[in-house]
């Protein structure tokens, strides 16, 4: 009798775990990603401490400015530093009346997730040609278990 009940309980726990999408077997207890975010444009260089927590709803990034960075002024929260898939990796070209804006987002695998490697925005304006690129990079990303 007890054996039967134990087996039933075990089967129920196994079924619940298998159906729980929040803790898929591939995530293996990974809880967060840390690293340094580096923002560059011309002489402008800003760095931030990055921590992205895995939550029930997805990923919650937080940034702490290093040196004279202006996190509050830029509204820097909310960028998809970590996600489940790498995406296409093709450049995103947006033509505007002034010129063309081309953005390339590249992600690299880190444990069960994909972490932003580099985002580069370049511009081509007919009268001005091409100039400096704006880049956002995540340096030395690490998985926290």
């Amino acid at each position, binding site marked *: 009798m007890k054996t039967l009940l134990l087996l039933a309980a075990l089967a129920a726990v196994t079924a619940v775990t298998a159906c729980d999408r929040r803790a898929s077997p591939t995530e293996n207890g990974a809880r967060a990603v840390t690293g340094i975010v580096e923002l560059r444009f011309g002489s*402008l260089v800003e760095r931030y401490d990055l921590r992205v927590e895995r939550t029930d709803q997805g990923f919650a990034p937080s940034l702490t400015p290093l040196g004279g960075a202006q996190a509050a002024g830029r509204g820097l929260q909310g960028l*998809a530093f970590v996600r489940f898939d790498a995406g296409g990796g093709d450049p995103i070209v947006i033509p505007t009346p002034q010129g063309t804006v081309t953005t390339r987002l590249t992600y690299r695998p880190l444990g069960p997730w994909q972490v932003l490697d580099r985002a580069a925005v370049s511009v081509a304006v007919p009268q001005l040609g091409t100039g400096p690129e704006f880049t956002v990079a995540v340096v030395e990303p690490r998985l926290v278990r």
Partner: protein
Amino acid sequence: MNTHANTLHVRWAGPAVLTVLFALAVTPRTAVAATEPPAAAVTATTRTMALPCYQEAVAYIDAWIAYIAAWQDYENTLPGGTESEIMDSARRLDQAASQVGTAGWKLVKCLAGFASSGPIIF
């Protein structure tokens, strides 16, 4: 056979089975259906998300052009400008670079969110 059947005769078995059946009966079927949005809804979402990214791109290119103008102004000031003129020009260049940083960040944020299939907390 009789012994086997007796192993299932416990006092709470009846209420437990009834509870499970009741829970299954009251679970809304729409909860399952809602996880897969119809194709039309996806298309509408894509359209409305593409517009903000376009606006961010326009804001970025405007900031970028302003930076190039500030850079040219700085270079023109350097040869014969006074100290205060050069400092003013350098400050305007820094501000222009900062504007590009803000606009660029917003553009990347928009595009990264747009391309991602996973949920991100804003």
